[in-house]
């Protein structure tokens, strides 16, 4: 067979200047109607969802990622603070094998994880596809009615917000950590974790009530 085809039906699409254009909205100055090529998603939830509230007595679940050690270190420090406030903390680690048999296994694990917690802290949006999956998992948590906060680094904030909007939840809570982060030494990352503790609590709508009462 020859790779070169002979008669492509370009003719099926009218030429740029078509005899019937005037009958279909074109005036003599060649202006007319074109059809919008974009698709729209109409639904959106602009609200952030429920506050986490006082952490005492609640189970906070951190979604970790195989690839980001800095997020592990930050989650450890925040988890310690949450425990001091009377919360129970659990962790679930994702990787990017979210397809096929491995993907089905991770989907089941995620489902079990979300069913076992009261508050979700989902990270880390620190690369393109990581942001995609962070937001997707955060949306899954939010759709279950869990107080949910996604965590991203600064470079990926806009992507995170855009993906949340396109996922139907423009109001998703998003806490932003500095970038670069994973390239820093542990003591530098630990400092970031402590510096951002008040901020992430605000984003979560959470209160360290138990610790405050103890101090009082």
């Amino acid at each position: 067979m020859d790779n070169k085809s002979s008669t492509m039906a370009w003719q099926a699409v009218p030429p740029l200047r078509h005899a019937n254009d005037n009958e279909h909205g074109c005036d003599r100055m060649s202006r007319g109607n074109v059809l919008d090529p974009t698709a729209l998603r109409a639904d959106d939830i602009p609200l952030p969802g429920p506050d986490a509230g006082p952490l005492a007595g609640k189970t906070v679940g951190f979604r970790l990622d195989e690839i980001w050690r800095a997020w592990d270190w930050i989650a450890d420090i925040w988890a310690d603070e949450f425990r001091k406030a009377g919360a129970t903390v659990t962790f679930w680690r994702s990787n990017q094998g979210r397809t096929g048999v491995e993907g089905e296994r991770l989907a089941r694990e995620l489902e079990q994880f979300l069913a076992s917690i009261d508050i979700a802290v989902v990270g880390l949006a620190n690369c393109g596809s990581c942001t995609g999956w962070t937001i997707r998992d955060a949306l899954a948590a939010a759709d279950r009615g869990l107080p949910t906060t996604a965590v991203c680094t600064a470079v990926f904030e806009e992507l995170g917000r855009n993906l949340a909007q396109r996922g139907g939840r423009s109001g998703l809570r998003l806490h932003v950590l500095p970038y670069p982060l994973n390239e820093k030494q542990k003591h530098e990352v630990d400092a970031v974790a402590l510096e951002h503790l008040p901020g992430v609590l605000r984003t979560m709508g959470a209160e360290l009530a138990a610790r405050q009462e103890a101090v009082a």
Partner: protein
Amino acid sequence: MSTTIRPGAGAARAQQAPDLRDCGPQGCALDWLSSQRHEAEVDDVMEFTRFALERGWGDGLPLIPPTEARVRAFLAGNNRHADEAICALPPLNAPCTVEKIAINAVMAGAPAESMPLIIAALEAMAHPDFELFGLNATTAPVVPLTLVNGPVRNRLDIPCRHGCLGGAPTTAVAIGRAIRLIMKNVAGQEINVTSQSTFGTPGRVAGILFGEWEERSPWAPLAERRGVGGDAVTVFGTMGTMNILDTSSQSGTDLLEMIGKWLGYPGANGFSPSMPYAQMMLAVNPVWAQIIHRDVPDLADVQEMLWRFSSLDADYLTPKHREQLENLGRVSGGRVYLATAPQDIFVVCCGGTGGLHATGFHSFGSCLTQTRAILPGPHAGGQQA
């Protein structure tokens, strides 16, 4: 402004009078098209291209204005209802309708006969296991490659010989471009908005759309090996093209060793510490394909050799990289393998008869390759690709 018939009403009407669903350039008594209309220059391509770019519709190349007449003519060449939702493409996940496909295909300059191929490719990309969600957002330059098998390759002038991955003058470029415009305008993949691709790739403009040179291949067509005979597309999330030159090898085994060793480099996504598995595609020119087949007749053996030679000594990686791969169970006998198993290396035959080169397509990792038959629409009477 034309009267709009809501989706659903059109389908119901068409069931009663299917001959009215495609009315051609002259239009119908009823308007089957539901897209918003914009007033624009429709004869001046450059002016329309500027108009489209301002609205975020374009890719920088000239666009054909998708007038109602042109879109209707494109639809008339097929047997699909305009309001038929083919799939949902992430991240937007809005319905990807036949109408939106036609509008973008007209803008790209794709022939009407390419609609079934475009639909099959989009359906394949929309499969959850293809992981378009991550692919469209990632910092990686990954783009879906579309490989065409079957007689449709000739009917649509899909290149499979010299310059098949770029440079062959063919309408296949416009077909690939149509798919890319759909990814932008319907799926919502926008650079630095929903896509963080650090560098991108030329393949994100007009796609990577090529055919297998089945007549010269010693192996069964890839789609057939994957269970789909005849006209079919296979989509593969590729990081781009990697050329492999070999002017020394004389035997099939030497060629496979050389190719395999070049495929295995530590920075390939197949060795990413976040990817628990990966696939690989290799395009072999017809000259080498014959030599390889002569010396290694069983394709499974070919795949096994490529798999083995493309593996790396785990100690070649940095300690943290190795540790992360070990956590994913990817280190076996001190080695890390580029693809999960030998059968995850897909070997196809295409390219020119000058030989000397192979092309490696490294995968993104989590995008599992999908194959779909290219089928006419569900309604009788239309043209087929």
